[in-house]
């Protein structure tokens, strides 16, 4: 069982043509429906739907309020290593980039964790590049052992592993997995990942399901927006999320909408995704999958993040550093430049001022109390 056949079928489908045949009437009909299928989702991603953003936003807002209330879960990333064997053309940590490489010692991991925990956050996202010989499962397990007393919920955004490795980390206390396919277009994927283990499109595509099978409570997927036509990428992402939801109903499936940001290296986005287009993508996802968690990161600017809150967002990062060890020692270069440098306290105040409640803790570890 794999999403691969569906992803390959999508890559051959004349989606562009389908998007262009959608009419305004089609959009109006779909926005008013209680449940929509894949063809309705496609309708909401079409250029014609861009003229109906107001109606889509209203519907997305209503659905979000129903299923999640006025709450936003907060988390922050902790980069523990930037060693990487991959040659992703769009990434600041790519192997050919001449940047200082480092892996935090366990004492440094603890220090980072303490700085983050002091902000009140109880959900952490642990990040590395892909270099298992430098920062592999053993190292991650040690990091989790140190961080777990500070954070009831720890997710990882590291490198694709086998199910048995995810099971090991789940036993250690990892409850969430984030892995972005970057692009669902297999040809473009091959072009953007010329060397390194990440070249394996299929292994990466199946990573979310390996995580789900290993017992992860949350699996967060996404495409890096800017690499190619966003409509196709969001369509594939939404179908992938729906596929995962159906097969792993006990897992909270989440989607991130990362837009490309400036980074070390000369790669430029192939297509820019405007604010309106990002809103269309998010509201279409919400209407298609009302229970989907949607994450908006600090790649987005403060005013934009604040304004799109009611339209489907359920998770936000706050107090972010994308540099290894950047919480305890600020000022270092990170994986990419963030657009929203606000502290956790500032994000908390912003949410309160807009009538939203920041959720710092949304899981209680239950192992060992039987």
């Amino acid at each position, binding site marked *: 069982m794999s999403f691969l056949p569906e992803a390959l079928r999508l890559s051959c489908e004349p989606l562009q043509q389908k998007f262009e045949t959608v009419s305004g009437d089609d959009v109006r009909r779909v926005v008013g429906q209680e449940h929509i299928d894949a063809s309705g989702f496609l309708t909401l991603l079409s250029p014609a739907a861009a003229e109906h953003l107001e109606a889509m936003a209203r519907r997305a807002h209503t659905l979000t309020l129903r299923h999640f209330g*006025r*709450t936003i879960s907060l988390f922050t990333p902790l980069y523990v290593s930037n060693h990487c064997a991959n040659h992703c053309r769009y990434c600041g940590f790519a192997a050919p980039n001449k940047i200082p490489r480092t892996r935090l010692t366990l004492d440094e991991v603890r220090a980072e964790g303490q700085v983050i925990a002091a902000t009140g956050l109880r959900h952490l996202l642990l990040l590395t590049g892909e270099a298992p010989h430098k920062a592999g499962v053993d190292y991650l397990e040690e990091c989790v052992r140190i961080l777990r007393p500070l954070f009831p919920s720890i997710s990882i955004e590291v490198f694709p592993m086998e199910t048995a490795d995810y099971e090991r980390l789940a036993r250690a206390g990892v409850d969430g997995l984030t892995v972005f396919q970057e692009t669902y277009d297999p040809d473009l994927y091959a072009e953007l990942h010329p060397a390194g283990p990440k070249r394996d499109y299929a292994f990466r595509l199946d990573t979310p399901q390996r995580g789900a099978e290993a017992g992860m409570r949350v699996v967060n997927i996404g495409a890096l927006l800017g690499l190619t036509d966003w409509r196709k990428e969001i369509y594939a992402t939404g179908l992938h999320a729906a596929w995962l939801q159906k097969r792993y*109903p*006990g897992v909270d*499936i989440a989607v991130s909408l990362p837009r490309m940001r400036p980074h070390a290296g000369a790669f430029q986005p192939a297509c820019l995704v405007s604010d309106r287009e990002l809103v269309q993508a998010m509201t279409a996802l919400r209407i298609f999958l009302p229970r989907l968690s949607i994450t908006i990161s600090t790649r987005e600017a403060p005013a934009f993040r604040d304004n799109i809150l009611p339209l489907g967002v359920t998770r936000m990062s706050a107090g972010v550093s994308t540099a290894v060890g950047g919480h305890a020692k600020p000022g270092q270069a990170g994986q990419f430049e963030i657009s929203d440098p606000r502290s956790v306290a500032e994000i908390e105040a912003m949410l309160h001022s807009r*009538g939203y*409640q920041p959720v710092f803790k949304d*899981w209680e570890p239950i192992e060992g*109390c*039987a």
Partner: protein
Amino acid sequence: MEHDIFEIGGKRLSSRLFTGTGKYGSDSLISAVCEASGSQVITVALRRVDLDKSADNVMRHIPGHMTLLPNTSGARTAGEAVRIARLARAMGCGNWIKIEVISDNRYLLPDGYETARATEILAKEGFVVLPYMNPDLYVARSLADAGAAAIMPLGAPIGTNRGLRTEEMIRILIEEMDLPIIVDAGIGTPSQACQAMEMGAAACLVNTATPRLRTRCSWAAPSDGPWPQAAKPGSPGPEPSPLWRRRPRP
């Protein structure tokens, strides 16, 4: 309302509205909602409680007179629900527990089999167990046999505010079960809660709908009269009561 008392787990309650905590824009609204509604029982997800954060902990906002009904939100199996319940009691949340065992995130429908297993274990440990369930008579009987103190059937899937879509099934539970029936998910408007009460439900739990209200609206008993008596089917039932008049925002 003195004459309209009902009892769960040895506790006498005069309000038939149970409230939630999880969907407000600010936890500070919780105490205002408790006061305005007259509710005496409030459910709280243990997963959200952070006792290390004394300054802004959801528990701080719950008035002392409320009966805490911690819930096992996040549990996917009976074993997880049991562990969460034990943690809740160890954290000082009392011995009431609302069992939620949900392994389907798309619809948030409860797993009847796992719920019955958790109910049996926890009832034996002295918990007052209120299981959230799909209104199925066989599951309800299993829950009663397992020691549930009340049964909480859903009116519609959580968060949908679609009212009593399971009306016929709930009516059967009200007719057949001797335990209090508390209608849980799905209630989106005061009139839907009223409908549940007129069917003979013992109480309603309203969570999603309250934070969505744009104007202050009385979920509580009217100032000029009591709640209608819960009526068993076949009895004449209460006179229609002007329970749900909207008031302008203060």
